[in-house]
């Protein structure tokens, strides 16, 4: 039975935005922790750590996010856990974000002039203190713009969670489209909602980048 595209359908789609936001927030929070560990491993003195983290980044940047989602989704059964779309999407997107943020933050850490680390070492600061009080605060300033830019990519990436059956914005659109068969209207609305989420972040990333460039060239 095909019914009209009503205001209730619009509300259903708009309310599904919260699941896109929740999934993005989980992946970003998890990815921030993972990414920091990866970035520290990438810039560490131990060759084994550097190699392992470089491999991790290469695997996650060299394979499709869709395959990562499928692998984690079916992998849950392999390790004997119940198959749950939210859990699978959260784990896969967290690993994905860890690799990308790790690579972005490695670049930011390396962009801090080595004299800063040397000066901190000369002042007898230990590695944790050196990182926490000298290197990371300066790296954070450099990292802000590309991190916001990656957030846009992550929000768009959560749409793939619909394929393993998690009901976020894209899946809500598919459900409404199956009932009303108004694909032009439904997917147009869904696209507009993603745009409203992502565009301000894109503009912010661009403004931050322009300000950073001014600060560097001054």
């Amino acid at each position, binding site marked *: 039975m095909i019914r009209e595209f009503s205001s209730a359908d619009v509300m259903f789609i708009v309310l599904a935005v919260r699941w896109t936001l929740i999934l993005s927030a989980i992946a970003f929070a998890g990815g921030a922790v993972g990414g920091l560990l990866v970035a520290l491993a990438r810039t560490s003195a131990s060759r084994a750590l550097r190699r392992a983290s470089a491999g991790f980044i290469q695997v996650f940047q060299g*394979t*499709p996010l869709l395959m990562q989602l499928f692998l984690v989704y079916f992998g849950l059964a392999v390790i004997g856990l119940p198959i749950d779309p939210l859990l699978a999407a959260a784990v896969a997107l967290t690993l994905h974000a860890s690799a990308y943020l790790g690579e972005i933050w490695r670049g930011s850490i390396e962009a801090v002039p080595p004299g800063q680390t040397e000066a901190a070492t000369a002042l007898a600061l230990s590695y944790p203190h050196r990182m926490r009080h000298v290197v990371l605060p300066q790296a954070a300033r450099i990292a802000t713009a590309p991190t916001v830019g990656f957030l846009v990519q992550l929000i768009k990436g959560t749409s793939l969670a619909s394929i393993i059956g998690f009901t976020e914005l894209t899946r809500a659109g598919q459900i409404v489209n199956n009932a009303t068969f108004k694909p032009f209207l439904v997917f147009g609305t869904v696209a507009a909602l993603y745009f409203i989420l*992502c565009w301000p972040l894109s503009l912010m990333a661009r403004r931050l980048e322009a300000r950073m460039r001014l600060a560097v060239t001054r």
Partner: protein
Amino acid sequence: MYQFNFGPVFENLDLLLHGAWLTVRLSFLAMILGLAVSLLGAVAKTSAIRPLRWLVDAYVEVIRNTPFLIQIFFIFFGLPAVGISMSPNTAALVALVINVGAYGTEIIRAGIESIPKGQIEAGRALGLSSVNIFRYVVVVPALRNIYPALTSQFIYLMLTSSVVSVISANDLASAGADLNARTFASFEIYLVLTVMYFLLALGFSALFGAIRRVFFTYPASR
């Protein structure tokens, strides 16, 4: 305890290899057409006609701020409502070209802006025509500057192309999905698919590196 069963995967490896070939072909077609769209877009962005610039800006912003999955749904399911119907394979190619064209426009525009004004003036002083200035003074050096960004965008395009399997366009991911529907060896199939995509990405990156060494190692180092 989970019993791994790679039998169905290796018995049907020819299907997956054929799928991989389709993914390579689709990616290269989308790359070439996408590069053409990007060049047009970048030239239009430097145009004196303001509405044209706005149009290109709108295109780039809309594509870059919406997921590829929604773009392909809109093209494959939405456009027939206004009378534009395409087969899954055509829709997949069109969606990929439109998508990579938006990113490419931004990359090439940045490349053109990276050419100092003085070089163009020098070209003019040497009596080069404006077409030759655009070709030798702007495009080739700009391409050299943006080559890494452009090629990593192309590798990303190849990885993104796995999403076209949702509209049953023919590629590696849908070859895997077909096999999964017949054999249910899900984890094993997707593990092998992931490895194959990884090898494709390594292959693309090696190829782009070779092209760079042949065409973009300019005698004068910067």
